[in-house]
């Protein structure tokens, strides 16, 4: 009484009820298809959003002066708040758990930069070395800026790959060359790339102090950026920073318009919980759909058992044990779920791959994919589901009394 012996019976039974078999199989097929597509799209969303956080350190806080929006200490609203390099030092002294502090000072427009005969207009930024961490700058050749560059106001530059392409020939090594930035000669000490896109690759980073000397000696800075140390994530940095700067610049501590604050870590946390939400949603909806499909299988198997009562009676009279009958019905349910589920899995992966090959991408969506672990998991769920869906009708069939079954018409 081997496993294989049942296959013909099963095929014959399923074939005799084509429509019913098709509808049931379709239920499972659809369930798995939806689960796979949902999971694939969920993955795409997750990848799209992680891409946003890939560019910059996820635990950073970015500050920029804006305009006071509340009358405070006799000072009118609408007054611009301008951050300075002294604010940065004040923050460093007063606020615990922060590191990689950097100012960012840049000229209002792109500036012409020359190397030999070639000229290009690029974004010039004066920074501290902490910027390397915050921007996740990827060093290609040479070195990145270091504290000595800033302390000594060295005229050195680290340039992006687009800058290299525009200013240097194919065979020229940029590191060690001198470039002319708005009339001042700077030594290229390194080249970098960044996942932040074209704009960031057109940048030239200079030591903050050298930038001041060459272009703008004022202490004013456009951005003040820092990261939060591990272990300080629950510290209310945003509030403390606002409070400190409100004293220094005399704006209301509750004036949320005075500073632009971009708290990446808060966004990151929000997206983390969004991811979790997406995962739960996808899982619940997917499992629900799948469950509906499996209930369909149970139903059909019940009908099938009912219809075959007499056949089961004959088989029992001829010597089929309850276990044999149980196995027969279980295998039928299992085959129905496995074949249709497998097709659903393949179709789902096909749809996701199609989406991927068309390169459907948006800011929050890229490279949807079904990972093997999920596919394997779905298969396990299917097998378990098939067995579960078949078990109740199968047990019912196994308990059919042969005498009554033989009388059954």
């Amino acid at each position, binding site marked *: 009484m081997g496993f294989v012996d049942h296959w013909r019976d099963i095929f014959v039974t399923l074939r005799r009820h084509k429509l019913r078999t098709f509808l049931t199989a379709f239920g499972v097929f659809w369930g798995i298809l939806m689960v796979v597509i949902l999971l694939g799209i969920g993955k795409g969303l997750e990848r799209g959003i992680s891409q946003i956080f890939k560019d910059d350190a996820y635990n950073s806080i970015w500050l920029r002066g804006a305009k006071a929006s509340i009358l405070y200490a006799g000072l009118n609203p609408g007054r611009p708040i301008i951050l300075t390099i002294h604010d940065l030092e004040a923050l460093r002294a007063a606020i615990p758990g922060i590191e990689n502090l950097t100012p960012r000072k840049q000229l209002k427009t792109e500036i012409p930069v020359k190397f030999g005969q070639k000229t290009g207009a690029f974004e010039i930024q004066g920074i501290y070395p902490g910027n390397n961490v915050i921007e996740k700058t990827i060093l290609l050749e040479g070195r990145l800026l270091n504290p000595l560059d800033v302390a000594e106001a060295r005229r050195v530059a680290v340039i992006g790959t687009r800058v290299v392409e525009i200013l240097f020939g194919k065979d020229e090594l940029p590191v060690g060359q001198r470039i002319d930035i708005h009339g001042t000669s700077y030594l290229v000490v390194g080249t970098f790339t960044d996942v932040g896109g074209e704009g960031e690759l057109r940048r030239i980073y200079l030591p903050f102090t050298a930038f001041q000397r060459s272009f703008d000696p004022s202490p004013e800075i456009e951005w003040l950026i820092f990261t939060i140390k591990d272990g300080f994530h629950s510290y209310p940095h945003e509030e403390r920073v606002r409070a400190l700067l409100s004293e220094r610049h005399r704006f209301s501590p509750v004036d949320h318009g005075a500073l632009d604050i971009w708290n990446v870590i808060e966004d990151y946390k929000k997206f983390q919980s969004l991811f979790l939400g997406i995962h739960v949603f996808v899982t619940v909806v997917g499992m629900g759909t799948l469950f509906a499909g499996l209930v369909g299988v149970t139903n059909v198997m019940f009908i099938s058992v009912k219809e075959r009562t007499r056949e089961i009676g004959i*088989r029992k009279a001829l010597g089929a044990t309850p276990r044999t009958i149980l196995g027969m019905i279980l295998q039928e349910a299992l085959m129905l779920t496995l074949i249709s589920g497998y097709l659903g899995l393949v179709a789902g992966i096909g749809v996701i791959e199609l989406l991927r090959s068309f390169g459907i991408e948006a800011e929050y969506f890229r490279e949807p994919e079904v990972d093997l672990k999920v596919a394997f998991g779905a298969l396990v769920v299917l097998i378990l589901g098939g067995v579960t869906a078949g078990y109740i009708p199968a047990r019912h069939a196994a308990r059919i009394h042969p005498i009554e079954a033989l009388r059954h018409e």
Partner: protein
Amino acid sequence: MQPMLQVSDLHKSYGAGKASIPILHSIDFSIKRNEFIALMGPSGSGKSTLLNILGILDSYDAGEYWLDGILIKNLSEHQAAQYRNRFIGFVFQSFNLLPHLTAVENVALPLRYLGQSLSVRTNLAKSFLDQMGLNERFHHLPTELSGGQRQRVAIARALSTAPRLILADEPTGNLDSAASRDILDLFTTLHDAGTTIILVTHDEEVARRTKRIVRIRDGRLV
């Protein structure tokens, strides 16, 4: 010689307590090897119940049923199925062939439950069908066969596991007179070859073809 089949003081009733309805009272009889017996009685006489007990499809309340030296009592469903498979060959009035299996597959089915391999059971099934004169009908479905042919397939199936006992329940009830004669001739041939057969009928004509007639009325042998 030890009887092939012995029933002593067999009781059977349905229901429990005061509502219980007695069906069989103190049935006693025995059958020797290679007997050909007709079991006769009007409907409601208890002959179907007796047949079910003899066929190990039903249990009984008191007494003993010995089949070929084995006491058939208090069996689990699993054991009952195995005993039916090995000891009993059934021939039904309505043939009870599985409609989606071919003649060979129908005959091979009990052998499958016996655990025979596909090639063994196919060969055996073919040889039994051959004996029934159906060597040209191996791969026909039941619907493609005449009533007489179907009953012969069913007889081949009943013989396939070489059972101790053939139980035939009104085997000619659904057949015309020519086919009936044909089937009864076949039973006679099988009996001559040494098979033990109990044939249930209410047709005196059919009963007369057997060697002994056992009559049952109101749950008692008469």
